[in-house]
Structure formats: C-alpha cells, structure tokens
C-alpha cells in the first residue's frame, strides 16, 4: 500500500510528528546540557570578580579554589549603603579590602556587563572587567581585552566626597559601545556612592 505523500492528511501528520520529535529532542538536550552551562556561568562570574580585583593568573580551572581563598565576604546593600537582607546591590569583598561590584548596561547590539573593583578607601579603582553578549568582534568586542581594561586601574572615582565622572580612552569605531561603558560605570557608581562615602577614612 503506497500512501500519497502530497495528500493533506499526510502533510498534517508529517508536520505534527516532526514537531513533536524535534521538541522532545531539544527539551532533552537542554535539560542534559543545563548543569554544565550553569557551572560555566558561575565559574565565569568568579573569574571576572577575581580578575577585576587584580588577582593574577586566574583561569577556569583554578577559579573556584582562588575564589574560596580570596573572597572574604559577600552581601547585599540598600541604597543608603547599609548591608541588609533585602538589599538590591550585591557586593563582594576580596582579601578583606577590595570591594567588587557588578555593573550592567547596554552596548550597541545588546547588553554589556562588568565588574569594578574599588580599593579599601572607597576612592580608587583597582581594576575593571567587562563582558558583552553581542558586540562586534574587533570593535565593541575589544572592551574585553586586557589593553582596554587595564587603563581603569588607579583612576579616582571620589574627590572630596563627590563622585568624579569617569574618563577613559574610547575605542575607535565603537563609539556606541564606549559610551555604553561610560554610562554603565557612572550609573553603577552613583548607586553605590553612599557606601563608598562610608569607607572613607
């Protein structure tokens, strides 16, 4: 018995079976890959925090161990700079001195993010680390390079109790991404400003 493969019944049946099979396959794959992906993301976060704080030689194999060693505390702040349970601003303390804060902003094509490490006196940047979802490789994507990130070390963020707008060398050909980085840093520092004022000796 040969079925007509161009009949409507067959087409509907074929499409239904195909979609169900594909859906089952993808669900299975996502469930199976998920634990690995989650571990990667967590590991990546630790690498970025450690790198921003200037810990040398961090790679994906030793990140978990180094994080355990160096991260002495982590808590949430409210907008007045006090540590509370229901705060919205996370903060990681590295080696009891450096505060690392996460940043979120937008670049040209999509979200950009990063970590900023501030020294114990609350006024100087120790290091910065940036990441992006979909900036152009070679242009906006350059924000993840050592060359771009290293220029932030040692910059002043507070002078006489006032926030100083950040200044840095932008990337040629990636104006929107560079502006995004500046906006992200300024916005983040503004929300943490109360906390850094308290750190002042």
């Amino acid at each position, binding site marked *: 018995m040969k079925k007509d*493969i161009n009949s409507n019944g*067959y087409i509907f049946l074929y499409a239904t079976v195909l979609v169900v099979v594909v859906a089952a396959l*993808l669900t299975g794959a996502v469930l199976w890959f998920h634990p690995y992906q989650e571990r990667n993301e967590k590991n990546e976060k630790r690498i970025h925090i450690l790198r921003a704080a200037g810990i040398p030689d961090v790679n994906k194999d030793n990140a978990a161990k180094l994080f355990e060693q160096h991260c002495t505390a982590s808590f949430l702040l409210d907008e007045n700079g006090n540590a509370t349970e229901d705060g919205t601003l996370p903060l990681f303390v590295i080696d009891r001195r450096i505060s690392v804060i996460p940043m979120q902003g937008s670049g040209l094509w*999509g979200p950009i993010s990063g970590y900023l490490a501030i020294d114990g006196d609350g006024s100087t940047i120790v290091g910065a680390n940036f990441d992006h979802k979909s900036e152009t*490789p*070679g242009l906006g*994507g350059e924000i993840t390079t050592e060359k771009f990130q290293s220029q932030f070390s040692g910059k002043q963020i507070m002078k006489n109790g006032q926030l100083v707008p950040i200044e840095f060398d932008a990337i040629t050909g990636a104006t929107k991404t560079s502006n995004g980085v500046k906006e992200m840093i300024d916005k983040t520092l503004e929300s943490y400003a109360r906390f850094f004022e308290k750190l002042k000796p």
Partner: protein
Amino acid sequence: MSQFKKLLIEPLRKANPITVLVLGICSCLAVTAQLKPALVMGASVTVVTALSNLIISLLRKGIPARIRIIVQLVVVATLVILVDQFLKAFVYDVSKQLSVFVGLIITNCIVMGRLEAFAMSHKPWESFLDGLGNGLGYSLILVIVAFSRELFGSGTLFGYQVVPQSFYEAGYQNNGLMILPPMALVVVGVIIWINNSKTESK
C-alpha cells in the same frame, strides 16, 4: 578522481560557496575581524551543513513537496540550537566569542542552498560529503579573509602580536579600515577576482 573525492574537493575552489556561488557573504563580513571566531564559525557551519544534508537526504523520500522548505528549516534550526547549546556547555569561552553568529547559521544561505540543490535529490553519503565540502569551502574563505583582516587591521594573529614593535616605532600604523565590515567585502572581492581570472583561462 573518484566521485566522492570530487564532491569534497570541488566546493573548495571550483564551486566555492562564497567566491563562485556568492552565498553566505553576510556572516563572512561579520565574523572575520579576527581569526579565532572565524575558525570556530567555519567549523560550526561545516558541522551543520554536513549533518543537515545527511538528515534531509535520509528523509527526502518521505518529505511532502509542499512543506519541504519548512521541514528543512526545522531540521537546520534544531541542529543549530544543539550546536549552540553544546558550545555553551563545553567550550564556553568560544561560544561567548561567537555569540549571536551561531544562531545566525540558520539564515546562512549555504545551508539551505545545499539542502534544496543537492540533499533533496542525492543519497545520504554523497549528501554528507557535499555538505562537508561546502562547509570547508566556506571555512577556507573565512580563514583567508580573517587572516588578512587581523594581520593588517590589528597587527595580530590569533590574538598574538606578529607585527614587531619596531615597525610601530618607525611609523607603521594598523589599518583601521580593515576591522570595519566594508573591508571584508573588498577582500572577498579580491579573492573572487583572483579565483575567476585563474579558472576562466583554463
């Protein structure tokens, strides 16, 4: 030359998907500013074209003609999602570099083009080789373009500096135009030109 070998070799130059068929230009412009993403993109496209060609060829007798494009699209999309998830799980740093471009393999004309033109009418093994060959032909051009763009645009290869520091001190400058997409088009154009002038004279 055996028939199978021909399927694999021909798309490298004589029937190259980029320079002769002029397909897949879009992603060629986007991922070739540096060598490493270009290489991984080439590998991903090769895997997707080879496997989707194989699967469609296996299914070809049962696919109703009226929904064949949709069926092809579903197969390609599934494979691309699997590749993307796989990269995210096991080579996280590379998958981050490629970001959106892996998802965009779905829209790569080479994949759909080979499915329609070859896999729908040929046996599985031949289709698999054809997909593999076309993927490799695509990768080849990608690597050539990325090589020249990274070398002249950033003075590096695979992120390592190859243009000596003394050149810069003597006044040499990286060509900023090379890292912008328009220059990829020019480089591809030059490759097509060389390719055509060599093949037509024969």
